[in-house]
């Protein structure tokens, strides 16, 4: 199997999701011939969003999951956005079998754009409180970068993406470049005001998200439009109002004439040249006929999404790297982490019945972390962010249980309800890992991934703290009937379902304890970069995608400098 001249590029980007799209954009914009390899099918913006403008009654099952979803796609159909209108953006369980040594919901969407079509679009910057936390509190490994190094790249990414939100001036949630914002409803405002009045260490703000509340010229040039507040984002947006690779980075990269896209092609490994001590390309398998092909490039960016990037590196075995590319220290696949979504609080909120809202908002209210920020907590490690929203559910109370009065009561909005959730940092530990099965293969002949990732007592202690803090805040605000739920106990929720799995190829200062350097290069194979979630040394409390995008843009520009200087 030989790579021919036409299969040779400056750069290969593996994966077209949220970070891969950014790598492609940055390289092509600066004139580098870039090959973007996607294992899933082609999905063109708008044209391939078949359900985007359908009414509820146009779905046979009114958007509910069927028994077929639940039996044939038992694991992936658990994702909150999986339903009749979105299922075509997810894989089926048997498309890529894997082994759960501990329960783990590995949610995957294989198509051009990957999960950037499905993401929850919440964008919060990290601060030095997150970059410094592992060192300060003694877990994981020290990040090799600090906020100041990433801040300009956050700005670079945000200006292009278009972020809705306010400049809130919160030290541990640095301000983004924003254009327009969404707003709170009356009950959310009342709770936020009560928090302001009762606490000095925390503040509730309207979420920052990648939906265009307003748009700037740069998004107009991308052919995108303002958010119509339909909240049907995960079907793909016909207005291009939320950021995805499909709506933004990929079409932008295509316009340069420097982008080649290959879909339906799985990267099985990175090719390593023992003589020149560098990667030379990638080995691929066609998902149509399983035929193999090698593509070559000077630089390779792995953006296959956290666990697949781990899989590819572990499967890239050579004489020099028998345990996977760059893996002399045996830490490849280790310190995989995720976000703790176990805790939930619900409550009733009396009053405000003269107020309602109009439209469906693509974000909610967020409260930046306030624990393990300035002071260490005795009971648990890591920080957590809180998100909440208030809404009026349909249906007012009536004595009747069926008939005319019952029906008419159901046509009216009911009283206000509040729902509050946590997004907690799960501490990276050596035990939480992925590795390759020695004997089981998937249908393409690739080794199956074994996931061994679980909760610890720390996650439970953090959840209990969230319950206590959340309950106290809601009580002070005047909420009633406050109920706490452990979604793991109540609904069997498992790690992975939040789709914030990160790590396994962590960045660090020391090649003995990390895989990647401060520029996301493999310490031991400098022309291979990992800039998706796999690179994360810890997970912080923020929604992660914005940070992947900023890290990608930063690493791509570093790689371009190195290419120009002839170093790479």
């Amino acid at each position, binding site marked *: 199997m030989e790579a021919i001249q036409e299969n040779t590029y400056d750069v290969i980007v593996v994966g077209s999701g949220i970070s891969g799209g950014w790598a492609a954009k940055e390289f092509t914009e600066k004139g580098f011939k870039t090959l973007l390899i996607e294992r899933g099918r082609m999905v063109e913006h708008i044209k391939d969003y078949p359900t985007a403008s359908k009414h509820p009654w146009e779905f046979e099952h009114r958007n509910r999951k069927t028994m077929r979803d639940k039996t044939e796609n038992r694991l992936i159909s658990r994702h909150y956005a999986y339903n009749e209108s979105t299922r075509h953006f997810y894989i089926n369980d048997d498309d890529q079998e894997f082994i759960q040594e501990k329960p783990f919901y590995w949610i995957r969407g294989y198509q051009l754009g990957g999960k950037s079509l499905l993401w929850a679009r919440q964008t919060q910057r990290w601060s030095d409180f997150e970059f410094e936390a592992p060192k300060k509190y003694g877990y994981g490994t020290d990040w090799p970068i600090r906020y100041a190094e990433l801040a300009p790249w956050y700005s670079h990414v945000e200006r292009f993406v278009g972020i809705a939100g306010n400049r809130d001036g919160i030290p541990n949630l640095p301000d983004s470049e924003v254009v327009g914002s969404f707003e709170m409803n009356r009950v959310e405002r009342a709770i936020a005001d009560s928090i302001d009045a009762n606490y000095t260490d925390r503040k509730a703000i309207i979420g920052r998200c990648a939906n265009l509340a307003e748009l700037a010229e740069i998004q107009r040039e991308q052919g995108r439009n303002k958010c119509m507040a339909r909240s049907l984002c995960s079907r793909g947006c016909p207005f291009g109002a939320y950021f995805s690779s499909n709506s933004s980075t990929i079409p932008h990269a295509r316009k340069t004439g420097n982008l080649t896209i290959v879909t339906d092609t799985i990267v099985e490994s990175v090719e390593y040249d023992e003589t020149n001590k560098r990667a030379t390309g990638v080995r691929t398998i066609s998902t149509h006929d399983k035929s193999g092909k090698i593509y070559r490039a000077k630089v390779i960016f792995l953006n296959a999404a956290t666990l697949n990037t781990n899989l590819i590196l572990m499967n890239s075995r050579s004489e020099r790297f028998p345990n996977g590319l760059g893996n002399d220290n045996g830490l490849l696949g280790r310190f995989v982490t995720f976000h703790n979504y176990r805790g939930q609080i619900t409550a009733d909120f009396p009053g405000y019945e003269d107020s309602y809202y109009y439209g469906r908002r693509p974000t909610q209210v967020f409260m930046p972390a306030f624990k393990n920020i300035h002071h260490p907590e005795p009971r648990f490690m890591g920080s957590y962010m809180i998100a909440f929203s208030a809404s009026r559910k349909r249906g007012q109370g009536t004595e009747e249980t069926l008939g005319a009065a019952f*029906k008419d009561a159901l046509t009216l909005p009911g009283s206000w309800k509040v729902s509050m959730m946590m997004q907690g940092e799960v501490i990276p530990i050596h035990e939480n890992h992925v590795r390759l099965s020695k004997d089981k293969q998937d249908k393409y002949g690739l080794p199956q991934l074994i996931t061994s990732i679980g909760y610890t007592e720390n996650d439970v202690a953090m959840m209990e703290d969230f319950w206590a803090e959340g309950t106290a805040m809601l009580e002070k605000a005047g909420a009633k009937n406050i109920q706490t739920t452990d979604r793991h106990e109540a609904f069997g929720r498992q790690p992975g379902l939040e789709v914030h799995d990160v790590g396994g190829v962590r960045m660090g200062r020391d090649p003995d304890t990390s895989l990647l350097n401060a520029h996301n290069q493999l310490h031991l194979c400098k022309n291979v970069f990992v800039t998706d979630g796999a690179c994360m040394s810890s997970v912080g409390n923020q929604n992660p995608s914005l940070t992947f995008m900023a890290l990608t843009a930063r690493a791509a520009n570093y790689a371009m400098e190195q290419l120009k200087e002839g170093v790479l």
Partner: protein
Amino acid sequence: MNRRDAIARVAWVMGGTVIGANLFLTGCTRKATKNVESLFEPDIIDFLGDVADTILPPTSSPGAKEAGVGGFIPVMVRDCYPPEDQKVFVEGLGKLEDAAKAKFHRAFRKLEADERTELLTEIDKEAREHQQNKKKADLNHYFFMLKQITLLGYFTSELGATRALRYVPVPGKYIGDYPYKKGDKAWAI
């Protein structure tokens, strides 16, 4: 909070009815006399429409039958419920007829509107008590399923969403404080 309460609470968290929330339930003691395909017979669809129309009758907005709920129920029972629930459902329709005959000595569709309401109110009470008291392994009551599907089907139908509720497919923007005066309809989604 126990599991059942948690599931009930999530119904509104998710903004809708939980269909098939009790899929973990197993075991069935009675044999079905007819299979789920029989629900698609025009006569049964018409019957289901009449039952649904008793739950959600025409008022200032169209009723469930006109909104097509009679035809929606068989699709949901066939595709969204496990076989043991399907059996309970199919058998349940027979029980509903038996109850009509026992109480009024006539078939359900021969009953006057107020008789239908009276009958179904009793069955609904029985169904709610069943759901309240049942053990984890016990099956759902057929009328509990029928009512859930009726509510889902009606309020997501074109007539239900646009006439009984306010349906705005493309709001254009979000307004956080939108005046509400008594009697204004809820948003459909």
